[in-house]
């Protein structure tokens, strides 16, 4: 029942008062001592909150930061090492693989050396024939999402990205990127 709800001395519903506290004071609130007192209470809270925001950071960030990050990253790296591998070459001793992470790092590095290009996401898929991965083709399919500076010409830049990525990856791994899909996912101001 609304009549059971707490009210300020002036009769104003307390919940309604607090729900509009971020707004400019009404004509009533400017002259009502009860509303002014309630507002002052809030301003005091705001002042202490500002101190909490400003003051509590330095000491907290020193505590156990390295330990926690180290623990998480040990697990993350262990998972990453177990990740997918792409075949590089088959010799009489067996297949030489490159980790997908290493290949992705190389692709990103190659793409982002071009001015006005930032890589966003990249996926690598070994060539498939009839739905099955080919183990010795050194022929993979990549999909690269990039963000481009608004100052570059998109068609010419995409040609450059395709050439640069294909050349760098082939030179350093012998993997042939026959199929490079590039999606312009974002534009940014430079």
């Amino acid at each position: 029942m609304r009549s059971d709800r707490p009210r300020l001395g002036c009769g104003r519903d307390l919940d309604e008062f607090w729900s509009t506290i971020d707004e400019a004071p009404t004509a009533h609130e400017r002259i009502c001592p009860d509303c002014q007192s309630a507002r002052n209470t809030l301003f005091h809270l705001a002042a202490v909150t500002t101190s909490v925001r400003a003051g509590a950071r330095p000491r907290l960030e020193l505590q156990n930061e390295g330990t926690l990050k180290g623990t998480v990253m040990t697990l993350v790296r262990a998972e990453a090492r177990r990740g997918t591998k792409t075949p590089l070459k088959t010799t009489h001793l067996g297949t030489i693989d490159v980790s997908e992470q290493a290949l992705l790092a190389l692709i990103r590095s190659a793409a982002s050396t071009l001015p006005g290009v930032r890589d966003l996401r990249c996926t690598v898929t070994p060539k498939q024939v009839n739905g099955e991965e080919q183990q010795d083709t050194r022929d993979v399919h990549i999909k690269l999402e990039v963000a481009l500076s608004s100052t570059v010409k998109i068609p010419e830049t995409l040609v450059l990205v395709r050439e640069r990525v294909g050349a760098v990856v082939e030179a350093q791994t012998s993997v042939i990127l026959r199929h490079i899909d590039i999606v312009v996912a974002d534009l940014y101001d430079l």
Partner: protein
Amino acid sequence: MGVSLDELDELAIVARAQDGDTEAFEWLISAYQGGLDRMCLRMLNDRTDAEDLIQETFISAWQALPSLAVPQAFTSWLYRTATNKCLDILRAKQRRPQDVRDGAELADMRSSSWTSVGCGYLSDPAKEYETQAQMLALADVLQTIPPGPRACWLLKEVHEFSYREIAEIVQLSESTVRGRIARAKRFLAEGMEPWR
């Protein structure tokens, strides 16, 4: 050579982490650990629980990143996961008897999560003492309000998220979030009245 992570915007770094780039994920931990630390400590008032929870949150994040629809969703996902875990812990604590801690341990925990003794950000020692006392009082009052409004208030007033962002984090309507924050403010302001 590629660009360093510090030259990229955060969305590009999240996207890299989504593709399994461990260096990008480590950057994200550094960027978000402090904020999650403050949020969870103030929600739980227990450093051990908070640290375990943050660790679990980042591990969940690494596993969930590939399926995150867009990089823009990362921040709200991270805070949503941490907030939900905090609420789960608080619910579980309500169902079982409270741990017995001695007064000194509680005082130290509360002090380390709310104040910055000796950091020198205030030059007047008397003023600094008064401010520290008020911050500790706020910490005490905050623990008396329900966890839901407490989380919304912290996200708004200490972590400076917008109402819309908080609605995404706690998965409630924006009007419900506004109501919860107003309610929390009312409790806190009234609880802080003796400290004016």
